Every structure is written in structure tokens, then in C-alpha cells.
């Protein structure tokens, strides 16, 4: 009846039989071996524990009345001895037909129950069900581990793609925070010096999250980096980014972004806002805070023919410019209230007199405090830029 049983290492599985009655043991062994199982016999609890460690069985058949231990109490010792992620199935054998004994055994972690005298066909059938289920669970766990390793790998690559240092430019300082809600994500930021002496600043958010978003993010990063060498006018740079990136998007996928160039000479920030959260400017002295609310094209991936609109703002000296993804303002607290622009504004103002790294850490801390135990639902990224030009008088 076990002809269909999957065999590993030349047998259908290893069964540890713990039974003190030699006649019973003999019978069980012959029934199981006929069904291609490898049987490891143990006459008592001590032998059984030793065999557990040595043989790593696929199933334990256990007489509930052992000479040196109570079978039900013994279950926890077996699980401790294997320390398996997937607990080994334990099937009790007993002549005791009392229902309470069965209840106690099942509550104590037994998988199944067979009453002596047992029917050989039923014995092999039950054993085969549990062994097969365990093998499937093991395969699933292995597949999951492999997937997780890949995910970790993608996450490492992605971290590696973020700038490991922000540019050194007179009068401009940077701080950035990137926190994906899963291992990898679709958020992305970058800041680097272009050939023309202006600083490219970008924060982008690919729809969705996880691995699919991470793939698009990597492409976007490569395209934006390449622009650094060209130093092309911003509309052209954006157009190119949109054309190439959109080719890889499936229906319904899109990317919002701020793609901008900041001129440290006069504080001009020229940027494209493609459906992204408006940047925030904080004047450190007065605490005055404003959102750069000008509108630009639709997000990338929706309409490749949309007109590129660039916007231009003068960032006043001694100000901070915040580019961020919606994960920052949308993060909820336990009552479902978002951190919102108000939460950002108050943390930014509180940190106005601190150095930029401390101010960025303060903003992140405020967000964490707001969300408390609420899980992150989206990737969160922000890039904080401080403009403090040397006095020109």
C-alpha cells in the first residue's frame, strides 16, 4: 500500500519506535519495514532520546506507558532533543482506551493516536500520512529559506546602491534616511555633484513595495546617475528617465519623484515634481515653513507624452530643504492618524538649531514615536539638505 511513498536515501523515512514490549516491537518493525521504512528501535525513554539525536527520525511511534517515563511528559523532551524547526510527528501507541488519556496526549503535543492491538494497514497508513506531511513541510521550509536568502541579497544590493557618502559642496550639507518596510523596497534617494557644479537631488517612490519595486528602483538609480555625467538640462534629463523607466513598468506600475538640481552659488532649486509629495522648506532662523506646491507632470509610467514642467524656487540662505516619500507623512499611529505634514513640521522646527545629522535623527525619532507599535506600511525615505552659503559681503 506504500508503493507510492516517496523514498529518500533508499527508504521511505526513518521511524523511531519506542516500545518496551519485545513482541510488539517485533511486530511493528516488520510491518513498517515491509512498507520500506527504516526502523530505529528503542526500549525506553533514555534510549529514545539518544536515538533522536543520532537518527533524526521522520516520525516517533511511542508507547504511552514507558518503563522509565510517562509517555505524555516525554513528548516535550523529544521536541527539545531535536530542536527541529518543524516538530517531528509523534504517534502514540497504547492499550489504554480511556478517552482522558487520549485528550492528555493530544494536548501534550502528540500528533496522532493508535490503539493496541493495532491494525497493520492502519499503522502504515497513519505513519505514511504524517511522514509525507513532514517531508512537504520540510520542502516548504527549504524553499522559503532560499527565497529569503534571495530577498536578503536584493536588500543588500539595494543598500549598496544608495549613496555611501553625500557630496561635499561648500555651503551645502546633507542627511538622509532610508527605511524599507520590507527587506527591499521601491524608495530611492540620491544626491551628487554634477559636472556643471550643481547638485542633483532626487527622491523617488515606485508604486508597491518589495522585490518588484526594488527592480524599478535600481533602474531609476542607474539612469539618474548617468545623468550626472551628461549635466543635461533638467527637462531633457527627466524625459530620458521617463522614457527608459516606463518601458519596464507593467500596467498600473508607476514612479513618483522629485528630480532636481540645486545651485549652491545662488540657492536656485530647479526641479520636476512628477506626482510626488511637495518638498518642504524651513527657514531656520524664523521657523517659517513652506511647501513647494507647484505641480509638474504625472508620475512616470502613466503618460509618456505628458509635458515636462520644471519649477524653480530660490532657497533662502540658512534654510533646509526636505525631499521625502509619502511613507513619512502617511505612517499611522495606533488610532490610524497619519504623522502628516504637521508631524514633520514640528520635528523640523524643533531641530532647526541642531546640526543637520541630529535634526534628521530627530525627525526619524519623532516618526518612530508617533507610530509606536504600528507596523510600517510603506517604505520611508527623506533627504534633508541645508543651505548655508558663506557671507558674501
Amino acid at each position, binding site marked *: 500500500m506504500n508503493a507510492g511513498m516517496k523514498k529518500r536515501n533508499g527508504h521511505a523515512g526513518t521511524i523511531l519506535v519506542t516500545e518496551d514490549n519485545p513482541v510488539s516491537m517485533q511486530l511493528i518493525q516488520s510491518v513498517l519495514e515491509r512498507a520500506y521504512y527504516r526502523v530505529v528501535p528503542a526500549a525506553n525513554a533514555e534510549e529514545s532520546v539518544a536515538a533522536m539525536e543520532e537518527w533524526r527520525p521522520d516520525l516517533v511511534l511511542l508507547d504511552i506507558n514507558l518503563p522509565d517515563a510517562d509517555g505524555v511528559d516525554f513528548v516535550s523532551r523529544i521536541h527539545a532533543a531535536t530542536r527541529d524547526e518543524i516538530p517531528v510527528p509523534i504517534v502514540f501507541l497504547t492499550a489504554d482506551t480511556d478517552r482522558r488519556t487520549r485528550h492528555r496526549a493530544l494536548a501534550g503535543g502528540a500528533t496522532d493516536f493508535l490503539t493496541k492491538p493495532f491494525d497493520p494497514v492502519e499503522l502504515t497508513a497513519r505513519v505514511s500520512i504524517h511522514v509525507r506531511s513532514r517531508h512537504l513541510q520540510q520542502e516548504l521550509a527549504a524553499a522559503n529559506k532560499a527565497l529569503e536568502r534571495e530577498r536578503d541579497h536584493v536588500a543588500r544590493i539595494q543598500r549598496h546602491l544608495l549613496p555611501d557618502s553625500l557630496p561635499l559642496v561648500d555651503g551645502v550639507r546633507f542627511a538622509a534616511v532610508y527605511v524599507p518596510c520590507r527587506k527591499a523596497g521601491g524608495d530611492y534617494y540620491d544626491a551628487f555633484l554634477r559636472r556643471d557644479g550643481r547638485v542633483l537631488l532626487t527622491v523617488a517612490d515606485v*508604486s*508597491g513595495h518589495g522585490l518588484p519595486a526594488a527592480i524599478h528602483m535600481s533602474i531609476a538609480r542607474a539612469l539618474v546617475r548617468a545623468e550626472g555625467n551628461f549635466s543635461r538640462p533638467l527637462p531633457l534629463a527627466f524625459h530620458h528617465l521617463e522614457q527608459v523607466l516606463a518601458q519596464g513598468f507593467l*500596467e*498600473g506600475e508607476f514612479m*513618483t519623484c522629485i528630480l532636481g538640481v540645486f545651485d549652491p552659488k545662488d540657492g536656485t532649486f530647479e526641479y520636476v515634481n512628477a506626482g510626488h509629495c511637495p518638498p518642504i522648506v524651513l527657514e531656520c532662523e524664523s521657523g517659517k515653513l513652506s511647501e513647494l506646491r507647484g505641480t509638474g*507632470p*504625472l508620475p512616470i509610467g*502613466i503618460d509618456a507624452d505628458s509635458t515636462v514642467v520644471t519649477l524653480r524656487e530660490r532657497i533662502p540662505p540658512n534654510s533646509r530643504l526636505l525631499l521625502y516619500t509619502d511613507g513619512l507623512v502617511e505612517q499611522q499611529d495606533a488610532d490610524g492618524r497619519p504623522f502628516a505634514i504637521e508631524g514633520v513640521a514640528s520635528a523640523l522646527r524643533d531641530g532647526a538649531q541642531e546640526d543637520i545629522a541630529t535634526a534628521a535623527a530627530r525627525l526619524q525619532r519623532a516618526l518612530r514615536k508617533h507610530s509606536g507599535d504600528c507596523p510600517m506600511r510603506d517604505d520611508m525615505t527623506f533627504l534633508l539638505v541645508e543651505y548655508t552659503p558663506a557671507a558674501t559681503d
Partner: protein
Amino acid sequence: MDFSIESKDERTIIRVVGEVTADNCEELREAGKALSGRGREVIIDLSQVDFMDTSGIGVLIGLRAHLGKHGITVRLENPQPRVAEVLRITRIGILFGME
């Protein structure tokens, strides 16, 4: 998230309830796509949607594109303030005649 679909004459209304996120929006996408060839207009009633992430918005965009090929226009109705804000900031509301 839950949704119900009701068709009458040339118009179908999808009433969505709850949060539309990456983890649950696939079903909505499939159900919406299945409406191609049915009527001239699909109205997605968002009055009971309290949160929608970018994957959820992606579903709306995908449906608009897919159903548009079959001559069906997609309109969004009654978004709550938070969802309306997302549709405004991303400018995606424009696609559904919201601005």
C-alpha cells in the same frame, strides 16, 4: 478590503470598503478587468475606503487603461479626504476627471 459590483444598463458601480493595499488589491484588479465588454462606464465608489497605498492606486490606473481599450470610462466617486489628497498629490485624480 471588500467590494461589491452592481451593473445597471450601461453603468457598473464597484463599491469598495476598507483599505486597498498591495496585500489585497489583486482581487479588485481581476474583478475590474472582468468588466470589459460590459457597458460604457465603470464608477468606483471610494466613499468607504479609508486608506489606499500606491499599489491600490496602481490598480485604478491599470483598470482605467484596460477598460479604456474596451471603450469604457472609469470614474472615481466620493473619495475620503486622505485618499483624495493622495490622488491630488500624485495628480492621478486628473485621469479620472477629478480636478
